[in-house]
């Protein structure tokens, strides 16, 4: 598929697509913020506080999507030993962790005025916190080995094992009684939001998603360059050593 599975094919694709993604995310987030902050109405019971949702929900979505990308790439890296998949997983982790943190922080700011508490150990909040810790564990494990290949392998296994948490987050509000309310957007009977609030939310979700993919592409490209530099340094060391051995023989 477009030779996308190789690093050089990916770089070509990313160079062509990235500018459009940046433009799309700027337009979508700009338009989304305009509707979210100025046009959309206050909620009938939450008042102006409801506007936190337009940042909170897209962050939550990308926290989970960032992890899913990481887990699926890790699986591809483990099974097919695809060199690009490893780099995609590695690149997705810090971005997803940032969105997860943003989700928890905005949720906390929203919880205090509406629920009356910054934090509650209910199933939704706790499983989201576990997601953040899984990201931290993944990043730490990857850097815990001298050999980057072994670090990537160990981290990939952790990413896959932690993937069971993603459906738990999604369905926690349906499986158990929680303080957090059930899903408004991904609901069987259609979104439980008035269209005037649904529009800015969907714009923000689309904008955040474009932003995530654009950042991911930048990070993957820099990972590819870093891998190239590592390979060049190694070959340099080898050639210097080889020259040294040759000198020794000559002398």
């Amino acid at each position, binding site marked *: 598929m477009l030779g996308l599975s190789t690093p050089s094919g990916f770089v070509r694709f990313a160079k062509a697509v990235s500018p459009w993604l940046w433009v799309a995310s700027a337009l979508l987030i700009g338009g989304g913020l305009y509707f979210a902050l100025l046009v959309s109405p206050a909620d*009938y019971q*939450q008042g102006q506080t409801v506007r936190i949702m337009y940042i909170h929900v897209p962050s939550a979505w990308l926290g989970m999507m960032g992890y899913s990308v990481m887990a699926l790439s890790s699986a591809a890296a483990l099974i097919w030993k695809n060199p690009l998949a490893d780099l995609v997983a590695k690149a997705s982790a810090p971005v997803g962790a940032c969105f997860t943190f943003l989700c928890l922080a905005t949720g906390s700011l929203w919880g205090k005025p509406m*629920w*009356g508490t910054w934090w509650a150990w209910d*199933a939704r909040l706790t499983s989201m916190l576990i997601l953040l810790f899984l990201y931290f564990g993944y990043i730490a494990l990857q850097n815990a080995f001298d050999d980057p290949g072994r670090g990537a392998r160990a981290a990939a296994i952790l990413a896959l094992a932690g993937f069971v948490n993603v459906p738990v987050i999604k369905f926690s509000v349906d499986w158990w009684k929680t303080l957090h*309310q059930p899903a408004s957007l991904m609901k069987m009977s259609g979104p439980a939001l008035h269209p005037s609030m649904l529009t800015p939310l969907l714009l923000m979700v689309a904008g955040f998603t474009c932003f995530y993919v654009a950042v991911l592409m930048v990070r993957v490209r820099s990972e590819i360059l870093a891998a190239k530099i590592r390979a060049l340094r190694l070959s340099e060391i080898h050639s210097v050593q080889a020259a040294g051995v040759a000198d020794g023989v000559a002398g």
Partner: protein
Amino acid sequence: MTRKQRRLYFVVLGMLALGAATALVLTAMKDTLVYFYTPSDLKTRHVAEGRRLRIGGLVEQGSVVRQGDEVHFVVTDLQATLPVVYRGVLPDLFREGQGVVTEGKLDGQGTFRASEVLAKHDENYMPKEVADAIKKSGQWQEEGKKP
């Protein structure tokens, strides 16, 4: 079978086993993973007097009475009810008909002495005019009364 196929089956089987194990653990811990019990739950399970727990439900219409710095109200899940006494700051969303989760202890007389009251709202978002219009047309469904 090639090495790639073997790795693929290994990963798929591993994920299935892990998923099944997680499902079993979560099912076994069903009762402890809930954030609160309902007044009906209290009837079917024995709760030791003086044990801290959380009770959730709706504030019954017409049940809120303020006496000095104490608030008395009744939490209902539309099947069973529980009288609650609370002293402290109530969240802004607290009102009759609203979902609440309250933490505290049962006293000897079957009254719940709350030390914390949190508001729980539903997943519906709409402007005030729309909510008023729905209420006016008689189509409004109170929280917890959904089919």
